[in-house]
């Protein structure tokens, strides 16, 4: 805003805003700090300065084999998102460039599937998984999370593709571009940013999913959300280890999230707020 503001007012607002921001961020910050404490320090009362030990990180790996749930998370989040993109890109493309009278209805219907509460289909999905031996497999979770996020993926892509002007395609054709050239030189460069944003947001959503992951896995295929939920009934001293596991689980997604603030608004409001 171009309004002239006195320096003092600005400093006042700055202090207030930073105070609120740090308050909101505090639980995350405190978990990160605790992850560098020893277990004794972790329960010794409020202290913002840890002894910077890496023991908890080492123990999380040696005691709980942290690498396995981490890799499960990577495979499940990336796998389900990429699969969803493969199905959704053609669909969104067709709806954006060859819309029919029913396109809007189809989109709204897709959105409505997102509103079905997960718990409502817990019984059949669990039984299907039980009988087909898909319980505790990464494949099973990839399929469920892919289907769960498919509507959002189609929607996001649709809103991005719709912004690509159709005239450009025609111009390229008039200039004698072949279909191959059209895709490589005209369409791809304009579609890639939208696809990348969609990819990013949906990896975040799949990474943090914590209903199906807890219901459908036990140990082998458990991603981080299910692995960390199993820390709810601890034995002995474990806060520093819990913090270390938590820090590792949220760090990659936190960083990705910071880069996707704009897409977040768009993706989660289905384009209703821009």
């Amino acid at each position, binding site marked *: 805003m171009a309004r002239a503001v006195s320096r003092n007012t600005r400093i006042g607002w700055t202090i207030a805003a930073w105070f609120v921001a740090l308050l909101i961020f505090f639980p995350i910050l405190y978990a990160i700090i605790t992850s560098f404490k020893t277990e004794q320090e972790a329960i010794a009362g409020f202290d913002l300065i840890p002894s910077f030990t890496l023991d908890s990180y080492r123990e999380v790996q040696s005691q709980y084999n942290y690498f396995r749930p981490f890799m499960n998370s990577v495979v499940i989040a990336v796998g389900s998102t990429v699969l969803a993109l493969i199905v959704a890109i053609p669909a969104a493309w067709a709806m954006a460039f060859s819309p029919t009278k029913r396109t809007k209805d189809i989109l709204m219907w897709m959105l409505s599937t997102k509103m079905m509460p997960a718990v409502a289909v817990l019984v059949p999905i669990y039984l299907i998984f039980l009988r087909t031996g898909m319980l505790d497999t990464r494949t099973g979770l990839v399929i469920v999370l892919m289907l769960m996020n498919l509507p959002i993926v189609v929607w996001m892509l649709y809103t991005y593709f719709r912004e690509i002007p159709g005239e450009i395609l025609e111009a390229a054709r008039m200039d004698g571009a072949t279909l191959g050239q059209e895709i490589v030189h005209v369409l791809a460069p304009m579609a890639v940013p939208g696809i990348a944003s969609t990819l990013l947001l949906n990896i975040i959503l799949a990474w943090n999913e914590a209903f199906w992951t807890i219901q459908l896995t036990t140990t082998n295929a458990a991603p981080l959300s299910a692995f960390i939920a199993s820390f709810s009934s601890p034995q002995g001293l474990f806060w520093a280890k819990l913090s270390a596991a938590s820090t590792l689980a949220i760090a990659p*997604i936190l960083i990705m999230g910071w880069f996707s603030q704009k897409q977040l608004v768009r993706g989660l409001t289905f384009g209703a707020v821009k």
Partner: protein
Amino acid sequence: MATRQTQSLARLMRAPAIILLLIWMIVPLAMTLYYSFLNYNLLNPANTSWARFFNYQYFYTDPAFWASIWNTLVLVLGVLSITVIGGIGIAMLIDKPIFGQGIVRILVISPFFVMPPVAALIWKNMIMHPSYGVFADLAKFLGMQPVDWFAQYPLFSIILIVAWQWLPFATLILLTALQSLDGEQMEAAEMDGAPAVQRFIHLTLPHMARAITVVILIQTIFLLGVYAEILVTTNGGPGNASTNLTFLIYRAARLNFDIGGAAAGGIIAVVLANIVAIFLMRAVGKNLD
């Protein structure tokens, strides 16, 4: 441009997504509906029989059901009021000319990216633990008796955690709306001597109305399904004090192995979610044209 050929190609491109979602939506839901009319317990599958409306009747007359409906309502409304009011306040604060706005934004948005079990366990152990948590340290520092949050105020504790997770979402959406507010109009109102409260009520709030609606509707969809936060903190207790509908159904299905009862509960959850969904679809649909 829409020749018959491109149209049939378009149909082919749309088909996989539509068919997959159709299966995903209809098959499990039909199965849930079917199971909801069965006496079917996984511990005793041989005794499966036709139950007619017994499961619904059972669910309906169970005191735990009404407790869970009440808890679901309190949870959703509690989180909504905290996040919407807090979100408006924080969005307006961040929108002010402050130093380091980018970093402030990043700090405020962060809780949204923390997966539910991690968020809940951090709060449970490091913030709200009755002997070692930061709240307890603070209480001792002030000479007060520390509170055992999850035993004494289980539902409130969960509301607090979930509100912390969703406050960034509300803030971000409302901030986006706020930033498209006409600055000149605001300045004119300021020059005319309209006090800050008046400007807020007559300019800012109406401008944000749509975003507020969207925040409320989208959050409600997600808040009806709160699960992991309850699982890792109170496990629904003490008693049913923090059991919402989602958790009640989970318990019926996975801990009591009561397939019929859980399915009936699932159908009730679908009806509830649909009431919200109808409003959301209208809000989104308007924007599509």
